[in-house]
Protein backbone atom coordinates (compact mmCIF):
# COMPACT_ATOMS: atom_id res chain seq x y z
CA UNK A 1 0.00 0.00 0.00
CA UNK A 2 1.19 3.43 -0.86
CA UNK A 3 0.44 6.22 1.57
CA UNK A 4 0.53 9.31 -0.57
CA UNK A 5 -0.69 11.71 2.16
CA UNK A 6 1.85 10.65 4.77
CA UNK A 7 4.58 12.51 2.98
CA UNK A 8 2.63 15.75 3.50
CA UNK A 9 3.11 15.45 7.25
CA UNK A 10 6.88 15.81 6.97
CA UNK A 11 7.70 19.37 7.90
CA UNK A 12 10.96 20.69 6.56
CA UNK A 13 12.80 22.97 8.92
CA UNK A 14 14.57 24.56 6.02
CA UNK A 15 17.50 23.52 3.87
CA UNK A 16 20.11 25.72 5.57
CA UNK A 17 20.57 24.10 8.93
CA UNK A 18 23.93 22.63 7.98
CA UNK A 19 25.40 25.98 7.01
CA UNK A 20 23.81 27.78 9.94
CA UNK A 21 25.53 25.41 12.33
CA UNK A 22 28.72 25.38 10.32
CA UNK A 23 29.11 29.10 11.06
CA UNK A 24 29.23 28.25 14.74
CA UNK A 25 31.47 25.23 14.33
CA UNK A 26 33.99 27.31 12.43
CA UNK A 27 34.32 29.66 15.37
CA UNK A 28 34.55 26.73 17.77
CA UNK A 29 37.28 24.91 15.86
CA UNK A 30 39.90 25.38 18.56
CA UNK A 31 37.71 24.40 21.51
CA UNK A 32 38.09 21.28 23.62
CA UNK A 33 36.08 18.07 23.24
CA UNK A 34 32.32 18.26 22.75
CA UNK A 35 32.49 22.03 22.66
CA UNK A 36 33.77 21.86 19.13
CA UNK A 37 31.64 18.96 17.90
CA UNK A 38 28.20 19.22 19.46
CA UNK A 39 26.09 22.15 18.39
CA UNK A 40 24.10 22.87 21.53
CA UNK A 41 27.28 22.90 23.63
CA UNK A 42 29.28 24.74 21.00
CA UNK A 43 26.77 27.58 20.59
CA UNK A 44 26.93 28.40 24.30
CA UNK A 45 30.70 28.47 24.33
CA UNK A 46 30.93 30.45 21.11
CA UNK A 47 28.66 33.11 22.58
CA UNK A 48 30.85 33.34 25.68
CA UNK A 49 33.96 33.54 23.51
CA UNK A 50 32.52 36.43 21.52
CA UNK A 51 31.55 38.27 24.67
CA UNK A 52 35.06 37.80 26.05
CA UNK A 53 36.50 39.10 22.78
CA UNK A 54 34.35 42.23 23.00
CA UNK A 55 35.28 42.91 26.61
CA UNK A 56 38.92 42.06 25.92
CA UNK A 57 39.37 44.85 23.40
CA UNK A 58 38.99 47.42 26.18
CA UNK A 59 40.99 45.39 28.70
CA UNK A 60 43.89 45.05 26.28
CA UNK A 61 44.23 48.81 26.09
CA UNK A 62 44.00 49.11 29.87
CA UNK A 63 46.53 46.32 30.38
CA UNK A 64 49.06 47.86 28.07
CA UNK A 65 48.63 51.29 29.60
CA UNK A 66 49.27 49.77 33.02
CA UNK A 67 52.32 47.91 31.80
CA UNK A 68 53.80 51.02 30.24
CA UNK A 69 53.07 53.01 33.37
CA UNK A 70 54.82 50.40 35.52
CA UNK A 71 57.87 50.50 33.29
CA UNK A 72 58.04 54.28 33.25
CA UNK A 73 57.65 54.40 37.04
CA UNK A 74 60.51 51.92 37.38
CA UNK A 75 62.69 54.07 35.14
CA UNK A 76 61.72 57.20 37.06
CA UNK A 77 62.57 55.62 40.40
CA UNK A 78 66.06 54.94 39.16
CA UNK A 79 66.44 58.63 38.42
CA UNK A 80 64.82 59.78 41.64
CA UNK A 81 61.69 61.39 40.29
CA UNK A 82 58.03 60.65 40.83
CA UNK A 83 55.98 59.34 37.89
CA UNK A 84 53.22 61.90 38.16
CA UNK A 85 55.71 64.75 38.57
CA UNK A 86 57.64 63.41 35.57
CA UNK A 87 54.63 63.28 33.29
CA UNK A 88 53.21 66.61 34.41
CA UNK A 89 56.56 68.34 33.91
CA UNK A 90 56.98 66.85 30.44
CA UNK A 91 53.52 68.00 29.44
CA UNK A 92 54.20 71.50 30.72
CA UNK A 93 57.46 71.57 28.76
CA UNK A 94 55.42 70.75 25.63
CA UNK A 95 57.08 67.34 25.24
CA UNK A 96 54.18 65.17 24.10
CA UNK A 97 55.60 61.66 24.17
CA UNK A 98 53.00 59.06 25.08
CA UNK A 99 53.30 56.25 27.59
CA UNK A 100 54.16 53.65 24.95
CA UNK A 101 57.11 55.70 23.71
CA UNK A 102 58.30 56.64 27.18
CA UNK A 103 58.26 52.99 28.23
CA UNK A 104 60.17 52.07 25.07
CA UNK A 105 62.80 54.68 25.82
CA UNK A 106 63.02 53.67 29.46
CA UNK A 107 63.72 50.08 28.42
CA UNK A 108 65.91 50.55 25.36
CA UNK A 109 67.32 54.08 25.42
CA UNK A 110 68.43 54.73 28.99
CA UNK A 111 70.47 57.85 28.28
CA UNK A 112 67.60 59.48 26.44
CA UNK A 113 65.28 58.61 29.31
CA UNK A 114 67.76 60.08 31.77
CA UNK A 115 67.82 63.29 29.72
CA UNK A 116 64.03 63.41 29.86
CA UNK A 117 64.01 62.94 33.64
CA UNK A 118 66.52 65.76 33.96
CA UNK A 119 64.37 68.05 31.83
CA UNK A 120 61.35 67.09 33.91
CA UNK A 121 63.18 67.65 37.18
CA UNK A 122 64.27 71.15 36.17
CA UNK A 123 60.77 72.00 35.03
CA UNK A 124 59.28 70.63 38.25
CA UNK A 125 61.61 72.83 40.26
CA UNK A 126 60.66 75.83 38.15
CA UNK A 127 56.94 75.27 38.43
CA UNK A 128 56.90 74.10 42.01
CA UNK A 129 55.46 70.66 41.18
CA UNK A 130 55.98 68.33 44.11
CA UNK A 131 54.79 64.90 45.17
CA UNK A 132 51.41 64.91 46.90
CA UNK A 133 52.17 63.65 50.38
CA UNK A 134 49.83 61.60 52.51
CA UNK A 135 47.47 63.79 54.45
CA UNK A 136 47.20 61.16 57.15
CA UNK A 137 44.18 60.71 59.38
CA UNK A 138 41.81 63.65 59.05
CA UNK A 139 39.16 62.77 61.60
CA UNK A 140 38.77 60.05 64.21
CA UNK A 141 35.23 59.13 65.19
CA UNK A 142 35.12 57.80 68.72
CA UNK A 143 32.62 55.06 69.41
CA UNK A 144 31.37 53.37 72.51
CA UNK A 145 31.27 55.06 75.89
CA UNK A 146 33.00 58.36 76.10
CA UNK A 147 33.99 59.14 79.60
CA UNK A 148 33.37 62.73 80.26
CA UNK A 149 36.49 64.17 81.68
Amino acid sequence: MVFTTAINFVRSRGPDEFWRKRKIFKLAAAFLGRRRNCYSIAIRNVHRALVYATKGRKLKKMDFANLWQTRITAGCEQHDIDYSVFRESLVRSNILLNRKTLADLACWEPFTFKALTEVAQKRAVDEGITVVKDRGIVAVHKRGSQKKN
Partner: protein
Amino acid sequence: MTKLYSSVPTPYEIIDAQEDRKAYQEIVNNVNKQISENKQGRLFAVVHVAGKQFKITEGDVVVVEGYWPPDAGDRISLDKILLVGAADFTLIGRPLIQRVYRIPQTLLRVNKIAISGEVNHPPDVTGLETRIF
Protein backbone atom coordinates in the same frame (compact mmCIF):
# COMPACT_ATOMS: atom_id res chain seq x y z
CA MET B 1 62.15 78.49 30.29
CA THR B 2 58.82 80.25 30.43
CA LYS B 3 56.59 79.32 33.31
CA LEU B 4 53.11 78.45 32.11
CA TYR B 5 51.06 78.14 35.25
CA SER B 6 53.00 78.68 38.41
CA SER B 7 53.69 81.98 40.08
CA VAL B 8 55.82 80.35 42.76
CA PRO B 9 59.16 82.14 42.97
CA THR B 10 61.96 79.96 41.60
CA PRO B 11 64.42 78.70 44.19
CA TYR B 12 67.38 79.65 42.00
CA GLU B 13 68.52 82.85 40.38
CA ILE B 14 70.05 83.35 36.95
CA ILE B 15 73.27 85.19 37.69
CA ASP B 16 74.95 85.27 34.31
CA ALA B 17 72.77 84.58 31.29
CA GLN B 18 75.75 84.89 28.93
CA GLU B 19 77.60 82.05 30.57
CA ASP B 20 74.54 79.82 30.45
CA ARG B 21 74.13 80.63 26.79
CA LYS B 22 77.79 79.83 26.14
CA ALA B 23 77.47 76.51 27.91
CA TYR B 24 74.52 75.35 25.87
CA GLN B 25 75.96 76.77 22.64
CA GLU B 26 78.99 74.57 23.20
CA ILE B 27 76.77 71.50 23.40
CA VAL B 28 74.99 72.50 20.19
CA ASN B 29 78.36 73.03 18.47
CA ASN B 30 79.52 69.57 19.51
CA VAL B 31 76.37 68.03 18.13
CA ASN B 32 76.68 69.92 14.85
CA LYS B 33 80.32 68.87 14.55
CA GLN B 34 79.42 65.22 14.97
CA ILE B 35 76.68 65.48 12.38
CA SER B 36 78.89 67.25 9.84
CA GLU B 37 81.62 64.63 10.24
CA ASN B 38 78.97 61.87 10.07
CA LYS B 39 80.25 60.39 13.33
CA GLN B 40 76.92 60.27 15.13
CA GLY B 41 76.27 56.61 14.31
CA ARG B 42 72.87 55.00 14.00
CA LEU B 43 69.99 57.39 14.65
CA PHE B 44 66.60 56.48 16.07
CA ALA B 45 63.51 58.64 15.94
CA VAL B 46 60.12 58.81 17.61
CA VAL B 47 57.69 59.63 14.83
CA HIS B 48 53.98 60.44 14.92
CA VAL B 49 52.06 58.46 12.28
CA ALA B 50 48.30 58.08 11.94
CA GLY B 51 47.69 59.27 15.50
CA LYS B 52 50.19 56.87 17.03
CA GLN B 53 53.83 57.25 18.03
CA PHE B 54 56.47 54.81 16.88
CA LYS B 55 60.09 54.53 17.92
CA ILE B 56 61.87 53.64 14.68
CA THR B 57 65.33 53.26 13.27
CA GLU B 58 66.78 52.35 9.90
CA GLY B 59 65.60 49.00 8.64
CA ASP B 60 62.53 48.80 10.89
CA VAL B 61 59.22 47.42 9.70
CA VAL B 62 56.24 49.19 11.26
CA VAL B 63 52.54 48.26 11.15
CA VAL B 64 50.26 51.29 10.78
CA GLU B 65 46.73 50.31 11.77
CA GLY B 66 43.69 51.98 10.31
CA TYR B 67 43.01 54.05 7.25
CA TRP B 68 46.22 55.42 5.75
CA PRO B 69 46.34 56.88 2.23
CA PRO B 70 49.79 55.78 0.98
CA ASP B 71 49.74 52.66 -1.20
CA ALA B 72 52.12 49.74 -1.14
CA GLY B 73 55.29 50.63 -3.03
CA ASP B 74 55.18 54.38 -2.32
CA ARG B 75 58.24 56.07 -0.91
CA ILE B 76 57.23 58.61 1.72
CA SER B 77 58.94 60.77 4.26
CA LEU B 78 57.56 60.85 7.81
CA ASP B 79 57.93 64.43 8.95
CA LYS B 80 56.24 64.63 12.35
CA ILE B 81 59.25 63.78 14.48
CA LEU B 82 59.05 64.11 18.26
CA LEU B 83 62.51 62.93 19.22
CA VAL B 84 65.76 62.00 17.51
CA GLY B 85 68.50 60.14 19.32
CA ALA B 86 72.04 59.07 18.64
CA ALA B 87 74.73 57.44 20.76
CA ASP B 88 75.96 60.72 22.21
CA PHE B 89 73.05 63.13 22.01
CA THR B 90 69.26 63.33 21.93
CA LEU B 91 67.17 66.00 20.25
CA ILE B 92 63.88 66.38 22.12
CA GLY B 93 61.15 68.18 20.22
CA ARG B 94 58.66 70.49 21.90
CA PRO B 95 56.45 68.93 20.61
CA LEU B 96 58.00 68.46 17.16
CA ILE B 97 61.67 68.78 16.27
CA GLN B 98 61.07 71.09 13.36
CA ARG B 99 57.99 72.71 11.98
CA VAL B 100 57.51 70.94 8.69
CA TYR B 101 54.27 72.27 7.33
CA ARG B 102 52.81 75.70 7.08
CA ILE B 103 49.08 76.22 7.25
CA PRO B 104 48.18 79.03 4.85
CA GLN B 105 46.93 82.10 6.69
CA THR B 106 45.00 84.95 5.08
CA LEU B 107 44.36 88.31 6.71
CA LEU B 108 40.93 89.75 6.05
CA ARG B 109 39.92 93.29 6.71
CA VAL B 110 36.20 93.70 7.47
CA ASN B 111 35.03 96.82 5.71
CA LYS B 112 31.33 96.92 6.36
CA ILE B 113 28.52 95.08 8.10
CA ALA B 114 25.05 96.01 6.82
CA ILE B 115 21.49 94.66 6.59
CA SER B 116 20.18 94.81 3.04
CA GLY B 117 16.43 94.97 2.55
CA GLU B 118 13.78 95.24 5.22
CA VAL B 119 13.31 92.73 8.01
CA ASN B 120 10.59 90.18 7.02
CA HIS B 121 10.55 91.56 3.44
CA PRO B 122 13.65 90.02 1.87
CA PRO B 123 14.54 91.11 -1.65
CA ASP B 124 13.26 88.78 -4.43
CA VAL B 125 15.78 86.33 -5.85
CA THR B 126 15.44 84.75 -9.29
CA GLY B 127 17.12 81.64 -10.71
CA LEU B 128 16.49 79.24 -7.84
CA GLU B 129 13.41 77.49 -9.31
CA THR B 130 15.31 74.28 -10.13
CA ARG B 131 16.93 74.02 -6.69
CA ILE B 132 15.72 71.32 -4.40
CA PHE B 133 16.69 72.63 -0.98
